[in-house]
């Protein structure tokens, strides 16, 4: 799916490059935060120094795992793309950085994907797959019952959605800046159709891989941080909650996630619904677009010719076509986003209400800005209290000694 040079025209490539650079700048900040969240409890406030080695090794892992061939049937085989997997394992921002670095190195060293198309490639393959995959994953983890199996199921769905979403994003870029006037409907159906198939494979492999990691080191799966069960001690033959010190490990996860997750979930949900709506609206507009196309074919053809003769740098633009598609697509998209947001919030609200009814509701009590007394009482202020020895993962412990 690496886009080569000359496929997307120069202005759109430049715009995509600027967008990709902005996304990477955001992710550079976000990755520090993610690494700080993953680092041992309260060890460092700033995860910046951890980011480079860990993200570098994860990028090397993605690079290697793309070479691992999964046989499909006699003779054919596929491989992992890794965007959704990276997002689930190390977090969305670090995931974007890792995939972007892999793409950069592939472009520079192996001539895989054009240099001018690097922006498009990063935007489509690193940003869209990772962000969509993570948004879907996080949303599902919130909604599904807690447990290892639902994490695997969420990983499956996330990877399944992320690949066609990237294909849809590519179609969008192509619609704006493609150099050949192929009917958009055809591009969309071909791209999305093929990538749904690829997505199924990607989904199966991602789910199996996440399952394998979560069985061995659940603390390494960034997407499933909130799901760790608090440590219990066996005192005199019965299980009791471990005292304050071990709770600090669980508490940041439990307390940070509801406060943060509202906003993140909202933003992520909105983004996912936007992308999905765009993708649905393409299907919705394929038919009328095709009809209009047939009707207006001659006229556009003449326009195209004149453009080429007039030597406009945007001769390959096909403006009329875009205007139509985007108008109808945009309208459908706006309506779609509205409906999705309303439906999504209704479901979310209902689930929240049900959880509040049940007794374990850390997700429900934290109202932004005004924490209820119960929430405060339940969680001993996590960050203020240094408790280095409470670390369940022994391997990371020397970090505090060093």
């Amino acid at each position, binding site marked *: 799916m690496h886009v*080569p040079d*000359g496929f997307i025209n120069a202005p759109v490539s430049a715009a995509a490059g600027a967008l990709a650079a902005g996304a990477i700048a955001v992710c550079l900040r976000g990755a520090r935060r993610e690494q700080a969240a993953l680092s041992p409890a309260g060890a460092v406030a700033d995860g910046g120094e951890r980011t480079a080695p860990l993200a570098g090794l*994860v990028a*090397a892992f993605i690079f290697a795992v793309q070479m691992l061939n*999964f046989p499909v049937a006699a003779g054919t085989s596929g491989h992992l793309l890794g965007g959704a997997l990276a997002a689930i394992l190390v977090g969305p921002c670090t995931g974007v950085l890792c995939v972007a670095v892999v793409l950069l190195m592939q472009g520079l060293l*192996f001539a895989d994907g054009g240099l001018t198309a690097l922006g498009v490639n990063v935007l489509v393959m690193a940003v869209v797959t990772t962000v969509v995959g993570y948004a879907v994953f996080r949303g599902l983890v919130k909604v599904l019952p807690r447990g290892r199996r639902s994490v695997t199921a969420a990983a499956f769905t996330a990877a399944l959605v992320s690949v066609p979403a990237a294909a849809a994003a590519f179609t969008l870029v192509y619609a704006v800046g493609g150099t050949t006037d*192929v009917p958009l409907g055809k591009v969309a159906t071909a791209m999305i159709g093929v990538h749904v198939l690829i997505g199924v494979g990607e989904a199966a*492999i991602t789910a199996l891989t996440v399952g394998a990691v979560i069985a061995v080191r659940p603390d390494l799966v960034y997407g499933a941080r909130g799901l760790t069960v608090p440590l219990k001690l066996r005192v005199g033959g019965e299980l009791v909650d471990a005292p304050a010190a071990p709770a600090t490990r669980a508490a940041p996860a439990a307390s940070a996630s509801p406060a943060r997750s509202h906003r993140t979930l909202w933003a992520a949900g909105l983004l996912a619904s936007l992308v999905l709506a765009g993708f649905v609206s393409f299907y919705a507009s394929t038919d009328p677009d095709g009809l209009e196309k047939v009707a207006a074919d001659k006229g556009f053809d003449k326009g195209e010719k004149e453009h080429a003769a007039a030597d406009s740098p945007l001769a*390959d633009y096909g403006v009329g076509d875009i205007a139509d598609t985007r108008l109808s697509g945009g309208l459908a998209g706006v309506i779609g986003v509205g409906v999705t947001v309303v439906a999504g919030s209704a479901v979310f609200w209902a689930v929240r209400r049900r959880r509040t009814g049940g007794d374990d509701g850390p997700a429900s009590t934290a109202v932004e800005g005004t924490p209820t007394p119960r929430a405060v009482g339940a969680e001993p202020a996590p960050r203020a209290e240094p408790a280095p020895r409470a670390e369940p993962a022994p391997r990371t412990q020397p970090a505090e000694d060093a």
Partner: protein
Amino acid sequence: MGAGHAHRLYRHARSPVHALPPHTKLTAVLCFVLVVVSTPREAVWAFAVYALLLASVAYAARVPPAFWLKRLLIEVPFVAFALLLPFVAQGERTGVLGLSLSVEGLWGAWNVLAKGTLGVAASVLLAATTELRDLLLGLQRLRLPPLLVQIASFMVRYGDVVTDEMRRMRVARESRGFEARGVRHWGVLAKSAGALFIRSYERGERVHLAMVSRGYTGTMPVIDEVTASRAQWTYALALPLTALAVCLLGWTLT
């Protein structure tokens, strides 16, 4: 790390192109590709001139043509797509050998093939004449965010280690009689991928601790600042500037 510190595409030689500072080469290639992409596709001769320009650079860099052409095979999957374009594009149609092809599609296929091939050829030349470390130094000199450069340098430094780990796992699987034949074996392969992730991540943690214990605070010290003289810049930018002249000629003549 037994494979040495050069990547597979690098070809060692002593030539003026090898000796250029990396950031000038990176800039030159990027500008060249940009110029190529913005050339009108009707100016067929311009692309021939670009190919000649690249060939002369390859000659100056002492990259044998066979080596260079073999590397171009990477774009084969995409050629297949380009060949499909004349059949699916719309607009005026023309008959070639009894097939009805779209004129627009033919132009599109030519456009993608010519520009894509020139882009790949330029990147291959860059990779063949620049070592990995130099490439990273060049990126750093071009003001890529330092964190990104560090991630990239860790990736290339440990890429071989992780790949080797994967190879050892494959040898272990195969020596126990495992052979991946179909979808049913995905579980085993995915477990290997999961194990690979855990090993990579834990290696990253160890590397981080080792670095922290040697005084790492999040930035790498710059020991060797690469600089380029005016003559070197001129030499490197000769390629994109010539290409720019050709491109402008192309715009005026067609």
